[in-house]
């Protein structure tokens, strides 16, 4: 069994399985740096949205 299958077997939740799938694909595509950039691109949008929301909220002050 490969590392991918071994981890997959231990995962119980569907969303974790998807996350693992995404990480594995990134790793196979571009190694460690690709994992980093995949995860970062996911959170960059969250960060931007969050900052925008706080900015809007601050306008009400």
């Amino acid at each position, binding site marked *: 069994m*490969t*590392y*991918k299958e*071994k*981890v997959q077997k*231990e*995962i119980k*939740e569907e*969303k*974790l399985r998807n*996350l*693992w799938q995404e*990480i*594995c694909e*990134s*790793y*196979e595509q571009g*190694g*460690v*740096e*690709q*994992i*980093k*950039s*995949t*995860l*970062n691109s*996911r*959170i960059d949008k*969250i*960060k931007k*949205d*969050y*900052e925008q*929301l*706080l900015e*809007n*909220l*601050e306008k*009400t*002050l």
Partner: protein
Amino acid sequence: MLKIKKVEIEGFRGFTQKTSIEFENPVTLLHGGNHQGKSSVLNAIEWCLYGDECIGEKSGIRERVGTGEMAWRVVNDNSEKAKVNLKIEGEQGIFTITRAEAKGKGKKGKSIKISLPNGTEKEGDEGDQEIAKLLRVSFKDFATTVYQHQETIHDFVIQKPSEQSAVMDRLLGLSDYRNILDGIKKSDVLKLQKELTEEFNKFQTRVQEGIKIRQKDLDNKRDKAKEKGLSEEELNENKLLELVESTIKDIGNFARLLGLTTTAISPPSDWKNTESFITDIKNECSRLWAESPDVKEQSEKQRKRSEMVSFKSKYETQYLNLKSKKKELQDFEQENGNKDEIDNKIRKAFEEIDAINKEIKRISPKAKLIEEGISILKLAAPSDADICPLCGEKVSNLLEHLRKEWEEKITAQVQELEKQQAELDKKKTDFERLKKELVHLEKDARREKEELKKAINNISEFLHKELTDKDDPAAILSIEIKNIDSRLKEIADAIKNKQVTIDAILEKTDIMNLLYDILLFKNKLEEINQIQKTNEYQKQEKIRTDVSNLVRDVEELSKIIKSCMLKEAEEKIDSARSAIGRYFRRITNNPAFQTLNIKVDEDKKTGGNFYIFEDQDGKRPIPVLSQGDLNSLALSIFLGLTESSGDSHPLGFILMDDSSQSLDSQQKARLVEIFNELSDIKNITVSTMDAEMQQLLKDNITKVKTIYKLSDWAPDSGPRISKEI
């Protein structure tokens, strides 16, 4: 079990020209100096079987990580294409695998083909699937149980004890877990939650500050409202609207009081529009006030008064200027005479100068005559005594007498006349200067007079009244100003009541403004206090929850990865523990180590595995092991894993690359003994540059062996390979 029979290499790494190496015997020895292509032979086998899997980060081999100039290149620098053809013998017969890659063509330039013993050929993805089916060994297992890379031994020997765990992970084929954990750790996901919490805390602080500021503003306005006579109960919308209604009435009454009509001002539809209503009221007040007849007259009178004051001031100034000039002229004439008198003086001076000039002219021909006479007398040599023609006296030396007479009388006379003439010239110049001054003063006086006349004309025009020389414009203006002042006083008394009315309206607008601000601040405070109910707030809450879930997922996944990594390490070590210990004791032959126990645990710091080596007494030997012992330990792990993979392992060969790098002579000899025993069950290919190891292998391997010497490597041809019998 599958065994390699032959490899053909062309254009791959150190090989430029097509080269063929056969593995027909249980042991194959590849020897030669550094950079002669020994490792390239083993790499070619690996690449042919696993392709891109053995390149880059995921290979777990550091020298194969990197891109561009640093990349581990498959295609030889002097070739356009790399091609490896591998013949493997299995129970069914010979399998031929051919892998090729063209330089710079990317995926399109890569090809794979496998020919099965029954003559079937499979290519591309199908070819790779057929190879995987045939090998039944993953690349990771291949790297830990079949191909002992020189780097793993080297790293294990040179790394610090704290970094040996990473090498151990590689030895055990766990690099993927470690790499993935590194990738997750390098990302900002785990930091994100903290960052968002910090941002949110800052925002909360700003909300609290906002509440404080608004509350302070509200209190301030409340105090002011109370100063204006409003009670706390009145600080509301009803009171504001009540004031709006009464102000509209006040404006109507005020317009009527002034005899004017008012522009219709609508009450605000809602208290929030009060600000513009207040502006409208103020503008209407200003308009009505400006259009009120009293105010208009007051304004007109004030303007007229101001102009009169200005005319009067100009007249008085001009009058004083003229007076001063006249006085100056008068003083001058008293001192120097009037113009006629100065003219007379100048004329007289002219006449006197003229008379002197005439006298000089009269005397001059006489002097000339005498001068000439003296010259004649000198030529005629006159007698010593004669009568002087000038004075009539008898002189002894007439010539000398004449010369003296000329010098003393005529010259002195002329000099005296010239002196008088110079004095008269000076006098004349002084008189002329005085005349100029006088003319200038007269001109100034005339100009001042003109200016005064203009000032009077202006006053006359302003007052619409003819003014004669007998009139005193200043006095007339004073009376006019007094009359205006009197009228202004009457007007001021008349508009006093109206002023009170308009002031009352404006005071109401101030109160309305205060009430409006109070309602506004109350509303703002309410909005801030209710911020948690806004959509934006709910959304940011959701983002924080989502991030928290994502972080939890990533942490959970990391935990699973770590646990799998640990489990796999434990399983591998468990299955190979006794073999590793045995091989270690055997290669090192160190009496201090009766047993070598390997434990594995999670490294809390790095997130990877942490390996502990213990001897029979529970002591940790790593810090005191020699490089040879460390080399032996790495080899023991590889050989232990190979052995533990069992007889059922589908691959019947192992590839040993530079295994003896730090071993001493006895350790090398013992390793060769092990190779000899292993060759009973597996074909062994050993690559070495170590001459002692080479000799030991030649002398002590009891199986049939093939020996290849790789030498004279050149870029355009690759190594020269000679087969030794």
